[in-house]
C-alpha cells in the first residue's frame, strides 16, 4: 500500500525559516531571532507599531527600506511583515520561494530523523523533486 498526502506549506519552525532565509541571501548574521516579539523600525529609524520574532533589519534589506519581520501567530505559524515599499522587491514570488526553501529544509530534516537519506534531487521548471529511501 502507498499513500499520497498533499498540503500547502505554512512556516512553523524557526530553524527551517532561518535556513530558508539563508538560501535567499539572509545568512544568520543578518537575521535576529527573539523569544518575545520586538519592534520593527522604518527607514527613518522610526519605531513602527509592528513587532516580530524574526527580524531582518533595514540595513540588510535595501536602501530606503524598512525592517522585514516574521511574527509567530497564536496558531503557531509565522506571518511575514513587509512594508508596501519593500513589497516591490520582496514580492509574493519571493515569499513563495522562501516557503519552498523552508519546505525543502524541514522535509530533509524530519525524514532524516526517521532514518531516510536523500537518494535523488531534481529541479524541473522550479518544482523540486526529492526521493528519499530507507533500507
Amino acid at each position: 500500500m502507498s499513500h499520497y498526502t498533499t498540503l500547502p506549506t505554512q512556516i512553523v519552525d524557526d530553524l527551517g525559516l532561518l535556513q530558508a532565509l539563508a538560501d535567499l541571501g539572509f545568512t544568520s548574521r543578518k537575521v535576529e531571532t527573539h523569544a518575545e516579539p520586538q519592534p520593527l523600525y522604518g527607514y527613518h529609524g522610526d519605531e513602527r507599531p509592528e513587532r516580530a520574532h524574526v527580524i531582518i533589519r533595514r540595513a540588510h534589506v535595501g536602501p530606503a527600506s524598512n525592517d522585514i519581520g516574521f511574527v509567530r501567530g497564536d496558531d503557531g505559524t509565522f506571518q511575514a511583515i513587509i512594508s508596501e515599499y519593500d513589497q516591490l522587491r520582496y514580492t509574493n514570488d519571493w515569499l513563495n520561494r522562501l516557503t519552498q526553501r523552508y519546505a525543502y529544509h524541514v522535509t530533509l530534516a524530519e525524514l532524516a530523523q526517521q532514518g531516510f537519506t536523500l537518494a535523488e534531487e531534481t529541479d524541473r521548471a522550479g518544482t523540486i523533486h526529492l526521493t528519499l529511501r530507507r533500507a
Partner: protein
Amino acid sequence: MEQIAVTISKDGQVTLHVQGVKGMGCADLTADLIAALGGQITQQTWTMEAYEQPTEAATWNPSRSLPACGEGQGWGQQKEHEDA
C-alpha cells in the same frame, strides 16, 4: 525498500508519496513532517499497489481519523475493493 517521493511546487505546496512501508508505521512516519509543514492537509489518497491503477485510489477525508497503513487494516477503501 521504503521510499518517500516529495514534490515541492513553486508556491510551497508539498506532495508526499510514501511507498513500501509496512505495518502501522506509514502515518507515523510523516506525522512530524506534516506538523512542520503546518499540518493543513488538503488531500490524502491511498492506493493498493497490487492493482497499480490510479483509478483504484480513493480520497480520504482528513476530518476522519488516520487509517493504519498495514495491509488489510481497517479503512473504507478496502471495503470498496471487496465490493467490486
